[in-house]
């Protein structure tokens, strides 16, 4: 019971961090069909900007400024880069962002150096919120949950209650039709791209001091974000939310459940010994492969439901 509750909390926090990162990418992907490889790089830039800003102005201004800077950068990338590449097709756009990821990583190394930077949790939040069966639940994690929940609420409100949001929603599922109706689709695209980058930047601000801020953080965070986005499905923010939580819980619970395929087979009466072929594979306990399960789940869902969990469009 204790383990269940603690794991639920842990899974929730991790899932919400994934959501913060993946939500921007889902919007961009659904709208423009571009799988933005540089999304995790923008996340990294958000963390670094926050580090610099918080050194001079403090954490709370950084919370606003860093995402704004990332959004601005995203707008510039879209207007001067992606728009030009758009006529060469989706694959060309994807490759463009791929090259961009390389350059951003190197630029970060050149500007801030190769080592991790001391971007820390602000003192106001650096204490324990409450205790769960003897384990501390840090206030900062509570803050993370709060920010991600607020963010989800804000996006949902904007998409369903504002005019721009309605246009975006329409463009998410029927981009050509929206253009035919006379809306300035390129401007909508730029806005969404910038917004997506701002969200990634916000995730960076929040996550950078929770995790470690270093040049390779984009490279390590990248794959799991793609998994979440594709798993959740195109065109659906709710799908992204559910997928993030599922991935968070799967990875968390996999760690605490000490079973393996051999145990499952033993339950139906098949015994595995050291000499059974593939014994090495069958006796792997779940915790060892916990972080790989998202990829397995991705492959499985793409086989049977290529739209993803709640996708409204085919890829």
């Amino acid at each position, binding site marked *: 019971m204790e383990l269940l509750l603690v*794991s639920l909390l842990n*899974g929730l926090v991790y899932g919400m961090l994934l959501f913060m990162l993946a939500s921007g990418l889902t919007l961009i992907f659904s709208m423009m069909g571009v799988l933005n490889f540089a999304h995790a790089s923008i996340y990294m830039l958000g963390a670094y900007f926050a580090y610099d800003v918080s050194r001079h102005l403090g954490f709370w201004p950084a919370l606003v400024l860093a995402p704004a800077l990332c959004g601005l950068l995203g707008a510039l990338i879209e207007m001067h880069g992606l728009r030009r590449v758009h006529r060469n097709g989706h694959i060309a756009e994807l490759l463009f962002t791929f090259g961009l990821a390389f350059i951003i990583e190197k630029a970060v190394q050149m500007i801030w150096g190769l080592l991790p930077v001391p971007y820390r949790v602000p003192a106001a939040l650096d204490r324990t919120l409450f205790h769960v069966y003897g384990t501390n639940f840090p206030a900062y994690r509570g803050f993370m949950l709060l920010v991600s929940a607020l963010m989800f609420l804000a996006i949902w409100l904007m998409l369903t209650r504002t005019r721009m949001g309605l246009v975006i929603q329409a463009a998410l599922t029927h981009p050509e039709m929206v253009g035919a109706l006379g809306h300035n689709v390129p401007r909508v695209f730029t806005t969404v791209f910038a917004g997506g980058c701002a969200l990634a930047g916000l995730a960076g601000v929040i996550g950078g001091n929770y995790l470690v801020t270093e040049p390779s953080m984009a490279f390590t965070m990248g794959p799991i974000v793609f998994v979440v986005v594709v798993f959740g499905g195109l065109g659906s923010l709710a799908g992204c939310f559910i997928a993030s939580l599922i991935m968070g819980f799967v990875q968390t619970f996999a760690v605490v459940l000490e079973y393996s395929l051999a145990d499952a087979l033993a339950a139906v009466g098949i015994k595995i010994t050291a000499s059974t072929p593939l014994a090495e594979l069958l006796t792997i306990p779940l915790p060892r492969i916990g972080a790989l399960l998202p990829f397995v789940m991705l492959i499985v869902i793409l086989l049977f439901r290529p739209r993803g969990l709640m996708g409204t469009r085919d890829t």
Partner: protein
Amino acid sequence: MIKPCRWKAFTLALAATLALAAGDAFAEGNIKVAYTDPLSGPFAQVGDQNLQQLRYIIDWVNGRGGALGRKFELVAFDNKSQPSDALLALKSATDQNMPFIMQCSGSNIAAALIEAVDKHNERNPDNRIIYVNCGAVATELTNEKCSYWHYRMDAHVGMKAETMVRALPKDVTRVYLLNQDYLFGQSVQRDVKTFLAKLRPDVKVVGDELIPVGKVKDFSPYVSKIKASGAQALLTGNWGPDMTLLIKAGMDAGLDIRYYTMYAHLGGGATAIGPQGNGKVRSIMAFHENIAVETGKTDTEGWTRQFRTQHKFDFYAAGFRTIFEFLQAAINKAGSTDPNKIAAALEGLTITDLLGHQVTMRKDDHQILSEYFVGVFTKGVKYDSEGTGLGWKTEVTVPAKDLDQPNTCKMKRPT
């Protein structure tokens, strides 16, 4: 169709490069040491910091006359963490008849290099090269995979594991093991359990985990398990984010435990752990800047302090100075820079290192035997790490003779 002029341009370019490279090899009779490590990409910091410390050390050694009156010269090759690039670097080194190749990071690259050096030396007896291993610690490299031409200048995993076990205080009886799921982490897991059984049979292993390398971002579920097990110490060989995130998660959750690591003292560790690690985090290391203060060796202290003021990070690679002191002594003893003679002189050699201890290059397996330390990350030391205000203080010193472990090396010696 490929235009012929494209090939011409390519040929010219290659010719130019090789003219440059060839020209270098015959310059001033320096003793060239090829050095390969990741200098770009996600692990660039490792190679970069090593390079800075190596250059500082070489300048110092050259200032003391080098070897046989000739200076050492370091030639760096970026291997981008790929074994194939390290092997290309080896080819470049042998093309220029360099007597040494050095490599510090990555047991996969080290394994590739040992085999390649062996095969090259066997197939080209007139152009041999010595492989100086400055940091690839997998135990197999001086046991099953040992080679006459390979000299390991850092304690291997087995020795570090034994140091870790020896550092456990008497009142710690329940430990938790958490390691990365690949050759290195699996070696740590196996060796720690072996030495616990041998040296501390009173200690119970209450948890034993393997995690996929570099994939886990959220360690809080692991921390819950550790807490539930009631462990008093966490023993881990993790490096990089796998180590820092684990420790951060543990401290965030308020885990009252001792952390024993192998890499917390390297670049980035202190920054990532921060002041909340005070008194909790320990690391197994060959050197830290406060040992000289503790043992009163003022000349060594001054030497490392000078490095600190010139560069922006702490000096941890005293082992590199020991390497060059060994090379210097071996070349002087052999009276030549012929790798065959240097190799014969190097094995079995004993020198005194910068802390005044006797260090031996063991003949059976070409493994270095030197003292090892366990430091605790704490306030109140003279030299802090990475500007955090906290630094390393020696908790336990394990003398070299205690680490003289048996080995299974069946070394094939050249006739």
